[in-house]
């Protein structure tokens, strides 16, 4: 790519990603309730919210079980993120898991799903005259998913690493095709540079993913098809570097490396894009479901995620051009020395 505008664009985009991606608040949520089972009769509980505004906007509070609602008899707000509620639970809820809901004018509806194990089941409560508000929240905030919570921001710093890696490997693939067509050693050098930089982004993707997995899945590494596929891809490309080191003749090395690289690219596609989708996986974008649309990627996340992907890819290409120019300088020097 010519010119400098795209380098500036990548910096501006990444600056936007850091500021908006870390500065945007997480949406409100109910995160904890003091009791975990309810029985027919009076039940009192204290619930804790996150980024909620109960003190400034008195909340409505209710229970929901299989579509049937019971409103709280009394709600006492303790703070912006805490309220105490008293329920008179009737006999006859249909399912054994009941959810706790709250609504206030600023936060909209928040819910703690399957909050209570329910006793005194029956065929349904006779009367359900609890009317609730459903006006939505209007503020700009990221979705507050359970377990993920604040870590949802990692979306802008983990996923684009892999996208960048794949773009760089595509460049390497293209340059390898050029090597086979023309036998050009310049193309071979460019392929090597692209693989080198792509491995940097692969390493960053692996480490950031590992940290994220520790926080959400509870382990640094799980034997998951997506994770293992990514690790195998890194090994395949590391072998590309080793293969190059073992062939002294530059022309022979260029052709051999190009052929290997084309196979490596296809294997990378299979290991990262195909195999994880054929089996079940903890990782989003696996188990038959593409990551987009399905996985909670709402419009607020998209507003940061797409710029993040473009910004990181441009930064990766920038790093590749720097690496490639350095390598060219070195080859010019080496040729001058040989003469």
């Amino acid at each position, binding site marked *: 790519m010519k010119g400098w505008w795209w380098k500036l664009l990548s910096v501006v985009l990444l600056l936007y990603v850091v500021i908006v991606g870390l500065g945007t608040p997480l949406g409100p949520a109910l995160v904890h309730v003091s009791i975990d089972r309810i029985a027919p009769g009076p039940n009192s509980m204290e619930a804790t919210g996150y980024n909620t505004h109960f003190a400034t906007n008195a909340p409505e509070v209710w229970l929901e079980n299989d579509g049937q609602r019971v409103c709280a008899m009394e709600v006492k707000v303790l703070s912006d993120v805490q309220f105490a509620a008293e329920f008179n639970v009737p006999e006859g809820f249909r399912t054994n898991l009941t959810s706790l809901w709250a609504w206030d004018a600023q936060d909209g509806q928040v819910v703690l799903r399957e909050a209570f194990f329910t006793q005194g089941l029956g065929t349904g409560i006779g009367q359900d005259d609890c009317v609730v508000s459903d006006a939505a929240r209007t503020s700009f905030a990221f979705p507050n998913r359970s377990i993920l919570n604040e870590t949802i921001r990692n979306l802008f710093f983990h996923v684009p690493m892999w996208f960048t890696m794949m773009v760089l490997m595509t460049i390497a693939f293209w340059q390898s095709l050029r090597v086979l067509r023309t036998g050009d050693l310049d193309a071979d050098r460019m392929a090597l540079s692209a693989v080198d930089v792509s491995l940097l982004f692969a390493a960053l993707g692996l*480490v950031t993913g590992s*940290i994220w997995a520790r926080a959400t899945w509870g382990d640094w590494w799980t034997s998951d098809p997506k994770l293992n596929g990514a690790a195998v891809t890194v090994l395949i490309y590391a072998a590309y570097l080793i293969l190059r080191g073992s062939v002294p003749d530059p022309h022979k090395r260029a052709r051999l490396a190009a052929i290997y690289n084309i196979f490596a690219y296809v294997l990378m596609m299979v290991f990262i894009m195909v195999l994880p989708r054929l089996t079940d996986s903890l990782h989003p974008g696996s188990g038959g479901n593409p990551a987009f649309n399905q996985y909670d990627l709402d419009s607020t996340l998209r507003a940061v995620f797409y710029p993040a992907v473009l910004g990181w890819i441009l930064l990766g290409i920038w790093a590749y051009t720097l690496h490639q120019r*350095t390598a060219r300088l070195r080859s010019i020097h080496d040729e001058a020395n040989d003469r």
Partner: protein
Amino acid sequence: MMKLTIVKPLTLVMAFLALPMSTFAASSAPSWLQETMFASGKINTVVMVVSVVLIGIAIWMFALDRRLGKLERRAKEQTNAGQH
């Protein structure tokens, strides 16, 4: 000469780091950050992830810097050898 050029940006950086810290010390009420982002404890994961990315890119930049430096030295040696 070398020392002077390093000291000036360093003091600048220190000043920028000290600025927000003094405002933290002044306010006794928990800040917006403490109340929201750090309340869950999970923001630390994001801090770690962003740090890893920055450190990784920084290491890469230093490696490239060294490679270029070597080339520059070699170019210098060659021109010196050519003059003699």
